[in-house]
């Protein structure tokens, strides 16, 4: 599935979207740490269909997934 990256995470990854195979949020977390260097030590949230989700959940594959570094609006 396609994963949207923003801000310093997009910078680290050198891309604003990457392809990751994951059937659940926890699996996605594991894969992301492998794919994006330094992510393990960064502060970030994962949004599923434009809402921040913390607990594990299964993916159907149609979700819109985004990895969000700390917010800085205003």
């Amino acid at each position, binding site marked *: 599935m396609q994963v949207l990256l923003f801000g310093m995470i997009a910078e680290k990854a050198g891309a604003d979207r990457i392809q990751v195979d994951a059937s659940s949020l926890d699996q996605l977390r594991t894969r992301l740490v492998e794919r994006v260097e330094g992510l393990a030590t960064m502060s970030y949230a994962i949004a599923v269909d434009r809402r921040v989700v913390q607990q594990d959940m299964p993916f159907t594959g149609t979700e819109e997934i985004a990895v969000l570094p700390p*917010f800085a*609006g205003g």
Partner: protein
Amino acid sequence: MSEVNAHRKRDIFVEGAIAPSFISDSIAKHATRHDIGAHEIFLGQVRADMIGGRSVEAIEYTAYADMANEQMTAIREEAFARWPQMTCLHVHHSLGVIKAGELCFFVFASATHRQQAREAVAYVTDEVKKRLPIFGKEIFAEGGHVWKTNS
């Protein structure tokens, strides 16, 4: 502006800095609303902060716009529910490179009496900073950058 209009889905993002003339045009549009007694406005301006001996000359803003606009719709509904005498609420945020001294954020609430407009602007300003996925790259005059974080 009708109640329905005030609640409709909007895009809060504008490319580049918010011009002072945009703010006065926005104020002037409310002259026909004779039930408004109070306007409260918050403006965010980019600061030339010194960070580790270097000086911020601009912030480049990016956003996850679809999520940010959905969050804004939720915040707007919370605000209209909590301050029923608020007649209008407008929020705009810049994207792209905004130089020190330029305006990047505009929150504007109007109400019959000042207390409702005041509280609504405080709430909306704080919630936008907390809940909207907006990212800021602080660019140094001396070269390089750091990523801004709302604490």
